[in-house]
């Protein structure tokens, strides 16, 4: 075994290195940060992991808004814990991106400049506390559906971050469903509020899996590299199949006339999401795009003096120790 492998990254297309990379992928083994990898693989991963990290951080906003208006101390403690988890998930993912040579500050600045995206779902507002429940059930449910297969993604640090995240995410979905169950046992008005909230979130939740397979140009390459293991449409179908019985148990319906069991396929049929709306939101025209980015920018700008002061204090302390 070689124990003194070079730490420098070799960008050249050396046939031996390319063969080793291909073999690792074929064996469904993991690529680790010091392995040689094609530049396009590195770039694709940085883009995907950064987008994922940004989604966790931006995702704190719709629900964070409700922490100070929680209906009880119990709900407040739960929501605080959940939003705190999202911050942690963002940090795990930024760390994974950093093992690919990305700089965290640079990623944040690209997000703020609109050069990197985050999940479109967070451009929809949370209008009531009921939405905290619906987001937990459907939005976190869709995220789990997407993230469980990513635990086996080909890049080691990304997969390990996903394992930690999935373990923690389970509470997010359950607290949401429990919140909705509680409301369904309440007044007529509360039940109507749950149905209204589910109606608003169903289609955006389905869009979380990304565009349909025939309109997703990066999917084939990502699957070849083992970054993705399922297509967008496969995951979307899985989510629909999982969610329908949950909705029945809860006593709500999804706003889709075309939703029905297909005995032959062994899956639920459902209508096509409004992809024009999806692309419009991706391009910046959703209800909250501007607000989300403006908030993130404000937090970044207003936090600058804290980051600088902490560095200055650390440097001063180090000087004192050296003296």
């Amino acid at each position, binding site marked *: *075994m070689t124990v003194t492998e070079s730490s420098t990254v070799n960008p050249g297309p050396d046939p031996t290195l390319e063969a080793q990379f291909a073999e690792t992928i074929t064996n469904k083994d993991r690529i680790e940060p010091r392995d040689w990898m094609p530049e396009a693989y590195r770039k694709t991963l940085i883009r995907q992991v950064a987008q994922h990290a940004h989604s966790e951080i931006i995702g704190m906003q719709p629900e964070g808004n409700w922490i100070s208006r929680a209906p009880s101390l119990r709900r407040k403690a739960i929501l605080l814990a959940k939003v705190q988890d999202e911050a942690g998930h963002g940090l795990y993912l930024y760390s994974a991106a950093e093992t690919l040579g990305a700089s965290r500050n640079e990623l944040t600045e690209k997000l703020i400049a609109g050069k990197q995206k985050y999940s479109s779902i967070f451009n929809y507002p949370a209008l009531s506390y009921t939405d905290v429940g619906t987001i937990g059930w459907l939005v976190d449910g869709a995220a789990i559906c997407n993230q469980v297969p990513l635990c086996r993604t080909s890049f080691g640090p990304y997969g390990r971050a996903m394992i930690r995240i999935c373990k923690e995410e389970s509470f997010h979905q*359950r607290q949401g469903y429990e919140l909705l169950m509680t409301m369904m046992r309440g007044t007529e008005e509360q039940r109507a509020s749950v149905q209204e909230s589910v109606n608003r979130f169903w289609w955006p939740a389905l869009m979380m899996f990304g565009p349909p397979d025939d309109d997703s140009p990066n999917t084939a390459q990502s699957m070849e590299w083992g970054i993705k293991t399922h297509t967008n449409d496969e995951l979307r179908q899985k989510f629909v199949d999982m969610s329908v019985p*949950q909705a029945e148990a809860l006593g709500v319906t999804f706003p889709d006339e075309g939703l029905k069991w297909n005995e032959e396929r062994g899956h639920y049929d459902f209508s096509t999401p409004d992809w024009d709306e999806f692309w419009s939101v991706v391009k910046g025209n959703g209800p909250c795009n501007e607000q989300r980015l403006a908030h993130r920018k404000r937090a970044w700008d207003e936090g600058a003096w804290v980051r600088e002061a902490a560095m200055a204090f650390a440097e001063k302390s180090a000087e004192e120790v050296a003296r």
Partner: protein
Amino acid sequence: MSENPTPASAPKGETDTTGSETSTPRGEWPLYEVFVRGKRGLNHVHVGSLHAPDDQLAIRHARDVYTRRNEGVSIWVVRSSEITASSPDEKDPMFAPSGDKVYRHPTFYDIPADVPHM
């Protein structure tokens, strides 16, 4: 060196596994902590420590001491004096605050058994 040194036994300001101060006495090789990745896809895990005169030899010694039976595909070594660890005395203030937050666990939420996939 003890058979199973813990990271907390070595770092800054504390005594290392041999019981001496971490500031290395003249002539003694510094102590290194060794982390091994068992296979691709897994984290590096702390497996123990050893003495070595420099970083490269620490890697070679770690290979000989800790991976003689295919235990690993990658090794990290770091000078024990470079590790900052929480102190055992701080165990309560550090970790007790998470003890009463049962709502961070999925089992805190009662979901009927007939609700699938949750």
